[in-house]
């Protein structure tokens, strides 16, 4: 459904959007900061690439089957490397996703709540929000999710 629809629609959008592209708010200026960041990232990648290339020239290459074996206390490895691990870890991933996403509301709010027009009411609202987080945490705690058994 998308494949047929989207390009068509986008084609039309572009015509209309052409004017908007010149606008400073939507156009070039906004992205300058990030273009520098991008440049730095490129520089970083270059650095790593150069380092590895140089490394390739300098290092010996003499693989043997023993050398390429996975390391496991000095004896030959037993079984697969990708073993199943304790599920416990997953719970933390879980908690994190839930809580961290809540934090995205915090940042926009944090920058404006003291601005004129918002006031204490906004603060209370956020306290309620934080209260939710706290209840969630309390819940997880009491249910023993945070215990490492």
């Amino acid at each position: 459904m998308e494949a047929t629809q989207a390009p068509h629609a986008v084609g039309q959008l572009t015509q209309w959007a052409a004017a908007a592209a010149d606008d400073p708010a939507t156009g070039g200026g906004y992205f300058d900061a990030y273009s520098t960041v991008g440049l730095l990232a490129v520089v970083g990648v270059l650095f790593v690439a150069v380092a590895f290339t140089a490394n390739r020239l300098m290092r010996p290459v003499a693989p043997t089957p023993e050398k390429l074996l996975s390391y496991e206390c000095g004896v030959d490895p037993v079984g697969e490397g990708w073993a199943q691990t304790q599920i416990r870890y997953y719970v933390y991933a879980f908690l994190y996703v839930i809580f961290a996403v809540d934090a995205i509301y915090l940042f926009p709010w944090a920058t404006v709540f003291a601005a004129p027009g918002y006031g204490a009411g906004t603060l209370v609202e956020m306290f309620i929000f934080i209260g939710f987080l706290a209840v969630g945490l309390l819940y997880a705690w009491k249910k023993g999710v945070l215990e490492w058994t």
Partner: protein
Amino acid sequence: MHLAYPAVLAALLFCIGLYGVLARRNAVLMLMSVELMLNAVNLNLVAFDVWLRDTLHAGQALTLFTITVAAAEIGLGLAIVLMVFRSRGTADVDRLRDLADSIAPPTDNTPDSAPDSPPSQDADPVKGKAAA
């Protein structure tokens, strides 16, 4: 920036996601595909928001909500997948046929998922309920 870039990117992402949902049979991969779709939507929303110069920033606000929704969905989804995996040892949605419409005479248990699932105590809901 031209609106076309984010819009096309979003469309591509969404298509990939949709393909993933339709083609993949592993529940976790399907979940990931759905996330891809949602993020395509986010991209769309933010791009349109900027393009419309919406003073309310409704698109951005909705993006925040979408992110939250996506997080909640993924959290819940993984929990459900995990539960299914624990009870049957597979996360392949095509193999979940216990509840499928059985026009044929009822068989007592599902033959296809029985071998690889350890007979856990509460695997059989009927038994479990009867005990309760």
